Each structure stands twice: as C-alpha cells, then as structure tokens.
C-alpha cells in the first residue's frame, strides 16, 4: 500500500511533507529517477512535519526547470507531480556527466551511471566481463558467483538492479581460519595476475580484477572473499563475507553451486541464494529499496575489520588529496631536505624517495643524474612526473609501495638490501603522514636497506600530536620520541636540526625537524 504523504512542498532547500509512516520514495526529474529517500529515516522534524535536504551531489544541478515527481518506489504511486523552477536558470535541468550520460544517486548517495538508464547494448560489456572474471577465478581454483546487488537483481527479477551501478562477485572459502582464508586469497590473486590481469587489493580477502572491455575502457570487478567459522559451544557456524555479512550459515547453502539467470545469461549462484540474500539484506530482501543502508552488526564489523582490514589505512584519504594535482608537474624545485642531502653526500648514485608523493624531489634528483626509486602507496600521485621522466628518458622508477602491508614493504626492503652500491633514502613528510604501525615498518625497511651503508634523510612536522583530519593529514610528532624509536631500531643520529617551513612570502611556517640517521655495523 502506498504511504500517506501530505502537504508536500519542494524548493531549492529540499522537500517538506507530513507523513507518519516510513517508506522509500523516488525523486524523478522529467520522469527519470535521480534519487530515493526514506520518508522518516532520511528526514528531520521541521515546522510540524518532516524535512529532507537535497543531497550535496544533486544540489549543483538544481538550476532550471523540471517536472518533478515523487513516486512511492514499491507501489509506483505518484505522490507529487509538478512543473517547478529551481534557482534562476531557464533551461531544463539535466543530471548528466560531461559526456551527457544520465546520472542517478546510488544507495550511498554517489552520482553514478545507474543501470536503469542503460540499454542492453550498454550493459553487455559488463556482463561479458562478469563471465570472463568468473571463468578466470574458477581457473584459479575458486568457485565464485554474483554477490550483493548483482545476486539480488538476478534472483529477484533476472535483471541488474536499476538503481545499482556496478557488479560484485563473492566466494566462500573451504578454509575456516582467517589466516588460511587470507593466504588463499593472496594465491588466487597471484594466479590471476599470472594470466595477465591487473588487480588491486582492498583487504586480506577482497580485491578487484580489472578487465579491458571492447572499446578499450577498463572495468574493475570486486571479488569479496568469505569463510565459514566453525561452530563452538552453543554458537552456530557463521558465514563471514567481506564486507558486510556475519550470519549463522551452512556451507551446503553455497556449494555445490546452482545457477541463476541475469539479463538472459546463465551464471553460477549459491545453492540456496535466498539464504545468502537474507544474510546480506535481512528478511525483507525481496522488497526493492534503492536507498538501502546496510545495518551490519557491530560484532560483524569489528570481526571483519580486525581479521582482514588495515592494509589501506589513510590510503583513500591520500588518493583523494592527490586526485586534483596528479596531472600537474610540481614546480617548487628541490626541497630544503634534498639540498641538505646533496650538501652532505654529494649527488647520490641511488636515491630512494620514500613517500615520494607528487615526485618533485625524485624528478629533480633524476635530472641531476641520480638513479631514483620513487616509492609511494598512491602511485598515481606522480603521474605528471612519470610522464616527464619517460619523455626525458630519466632513470626514475615509480613504484607502489605500501608501508601498511608487510608483503609490500618487505619485498622492497629485500630488493634494496640486494642492490649493490651506496644508497640514500629521503623521507620528507612521510612519518608525519603515517599510522604508528606504518611508521614502524618504515624503520624496519630503512634498517634492512641501509645496514650495509647509506643514510636516511628525514623531515617531518615537529610538535605535539594532534588528531588527524581529512584537511590536515599530516600530524606533528615529538622529535625526542622519533629519535628514541630510531635508536631502538639500531640507528645512529648523525645530524639533527629544528627548523621551520618557509612560506612563499619568506616568513617562517610550521615547525619542522630534520634528522640524518645511519646504521653502523
């Protein structure tokens, strides 16, 4: 039955109405869904009724004329339908991307190319990729199946869900201990990369496989691992599936796999898909909800976090930070730390720029004739420098090294330890950008790489720690603590200075510390 909604008013701020029940409502502009919200969950009380603000992602489009309708999603009952003008514009409002393709908000309120506006011809490449990846994973020894929204759409209606924008895959390991499940995931990823695919790891049991589609564009499909934890005492066996599921479960509800049909293609599916869908979306999974929010229990969230996550700490934040500058060449020349290094060492034969960021110092050293390894966990940050280095045929290698991941930093440390000749490590604004665990890895990498000679040049914001925020990703560190940590790791501090950043005006900026350390045998 349609919800009873009265006194609906729509303006530049948002939507006000009176309703006592909760239900999910689509907002359509000129007949096309762009957003969905829950009447109670997503609104706040205002002037005797309820008020829901326009989501930020939509706000910038709301300047012009449109036929706005509010439609109850499940019953498709129209609750409101009027020609409206927003802002001062006179044109029809078009929620589209730069290519003119229609966008809608997905369940996380991100603007996406949702499936409801895409034709069969448009979704065919995605389905091809899905089948290809299922085949590749199977060759690697794992029987995967469509998961989350992709499984939901297939089982509920044989179609991709209109308000969804991507496809997910899942599998359930035969192992029952997190360590074994993690190792298996590493092995599967390795077999897949051996077949030539690019991959990207999210956590101990989730990664993405990149597939090239017919037009040369790249599509990433996420593969979520899971496992069944054995029962103990009165507690039942539990399925834990990255990234939201923790529910009593039996392995025979998954394997041997059955089939499901998605957009006319027959794909593998759990033996009892309804059991997995209930574990994912609760008993109401059959009722469509374009504004669905996972209500993952705290215990499940803590378990998945504790067992499998932690190798991406602060990575998303730095990816966002560098996303606007990655195509711009850094212009400020060698840093004061780079100059100090050259004053003390001369031009190094091998320079390791640890936490290279946009790569300004790396480029400068390479141009002076040094062999440079620029290491960062956001390799894309130095795209502009990588292009110039290629054009100028410089000896500059940019590599993705993640100090949160033992496999990543340890393999780099092994490589450096086996590289003959003197080497110098430059780490500017690295340790003040790191978590404690990642800083510990930095010291161990330096210790391994420099134990046969060479020095570490370190520069960081000094002072009392403060809480890290998205705007202030660097946090000052007490110099005495850092010196003590280095000494505990066998380093000898051969130079120490307290100084300040220099603002463009020449005035002193934030307090800095510079340290030079070596590992004497």
């Amino acid at each position: 039955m349609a919800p009873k909604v009265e006194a609906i008013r729509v303006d530049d701020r948002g939507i006000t109405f009176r309703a006592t029940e909760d239900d999910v409502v689509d907002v359509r502009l000129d007949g096309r869904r762009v957003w969905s919200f829950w009447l109670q969950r997503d609104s706040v009380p205002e002037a005797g009724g309820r008020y829901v603000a326009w989501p930020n992602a939509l706000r910038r489009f709301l300047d012009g004329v449109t036929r706005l309708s509010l439609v109850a999603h499940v019953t498709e009952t129209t609750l409101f339908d009027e020609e409206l003008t927003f802002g001062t514009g006179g044109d029809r409002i078009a929620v589209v991307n730069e290519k003119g393709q229609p966008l809608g908000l997905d369940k996380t309120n991100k603007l996406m190319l949702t499936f409801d506006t895409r034709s069969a011809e448009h979704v065919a490449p995605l389905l091809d990729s899905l089948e290809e990846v299922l085949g590749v994973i199977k060759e690697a020894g794992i029987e995967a199946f469509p998961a989350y929204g992709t499984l939901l759409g297939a089982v509920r209606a044989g179609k991709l869900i209109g308000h969804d924008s991507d496809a997910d895959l899942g599998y359930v390991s035969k192992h029952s201990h997190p360590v074994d499940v993690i190792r298996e995931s590493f092995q599967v990823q390795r077999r897949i990369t051996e077949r030539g695919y690019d991959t990207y790891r999210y956590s101990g049991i989730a990664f993405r496989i990149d597939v090239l589609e017919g037009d040369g564009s790249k599509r990433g499909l996420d593969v979520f691992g899971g496992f069944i934890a054995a029962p103990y005492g009165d507690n039942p066996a539990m399925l834990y599936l990255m990234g939201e599921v923790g529910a009593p479960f039996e392995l025979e509800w998954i394997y041997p796999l059955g089939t499901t049909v998605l957009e006319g293609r027959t794909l593998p599916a759990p033996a009892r898909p309804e059991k997995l869908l209930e574990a994912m979306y609760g008993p109401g999974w059959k009722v469509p909800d374009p504004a669905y929010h996972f209500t993952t229990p705290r215990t499940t969230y803590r378990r998945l976090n504790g067992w499998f996550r932690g190798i991406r700490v602060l990575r998303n934040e730095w990816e966002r930070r560098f996303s606007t500058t990655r195509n711009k060449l850094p212009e400020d020349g060698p840093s004061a730390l780079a100059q100090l290094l050259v004053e003390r060492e001369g031009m190094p034969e091998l320079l390791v720029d640890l936490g290279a960021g946009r790569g300004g110092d790396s480029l400068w050293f390479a141009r002076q004739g040094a062999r440079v390894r620029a290491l960062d966990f956001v390799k894309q940050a130095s795209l502009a420098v990588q292009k110039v280095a290629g054009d100028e045929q410089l000896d500059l290698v940019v590599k993705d090294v993640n100090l949160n991941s033992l496999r990543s930093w340890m393999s780099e440390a092994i490589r450096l330890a086996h590289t003959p000749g003197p080497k110098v490590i430059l780490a500017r604004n690295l340790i003040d950008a790191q978590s404690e665990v990642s800083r510990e890895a930095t010291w161990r990498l330096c210790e391994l790489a420099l134990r046969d000679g060479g020095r570490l040049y370190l520069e960081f914001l000094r002072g009392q720690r403060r809480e890290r925020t998205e705007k202030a990703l660097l946090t000052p560190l007490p110099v005495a603590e850092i010196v003590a940590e280095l000494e505990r790791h066998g380093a000898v501090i051969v130079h120490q200075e307290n100084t300040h950043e220099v603002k463009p005006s020449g005035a002193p900026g934030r307090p800095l510390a510079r340290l030079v350390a070596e590992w004497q045998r």
Partner: protein
Amino acid sequence: MTDKTGLRKRVARKVANAAGGGIVDELFQRITELEAEVQENRNLNVRVGELVDLVSELMAPVASQDPARIEAALAKFERSL
C-alpha cells in the same frame, strides 16, 4: 539512541557507579581495554597471512643468492600485490 534514553542511561550509570564505589566506571574502562586487546589479536591474522605468503614465495629464491632468480621472484611477487 534518543536524547531521552541517552540521558536516562547516563544518570543510571552515575547512580550505579556511586553506589558501587566506582565499579561501573572501572568495568567500562576494562571493556574498552578488552575490546582493544581483542582487535590487537585479530590484527595478527593479516600479519601472519602476509608473512607466511612472503616466506613461501621468496625464501627459496633469496636463499639461492642468485641475483637473476631473486629479481624474477620479486617481480612476480610484487605484481600480485
């Protein structure tokens, strides 16, 4: 949690804590510590998984001391990270 239930819980905690000579605050503190310790333990899974994978894939080539074999093993390993 609504403001009212939140307030009720805070008052109840204060009263119980005062009656119990501070035991409620102490238990809350111990729960926080226990939760942190449980997560520390859980975090070992990724560490051990990574370490075992690294040793399985790289120990033999590195022990060989053959630079070409070490480089080939590192390149293959790093591509899969």
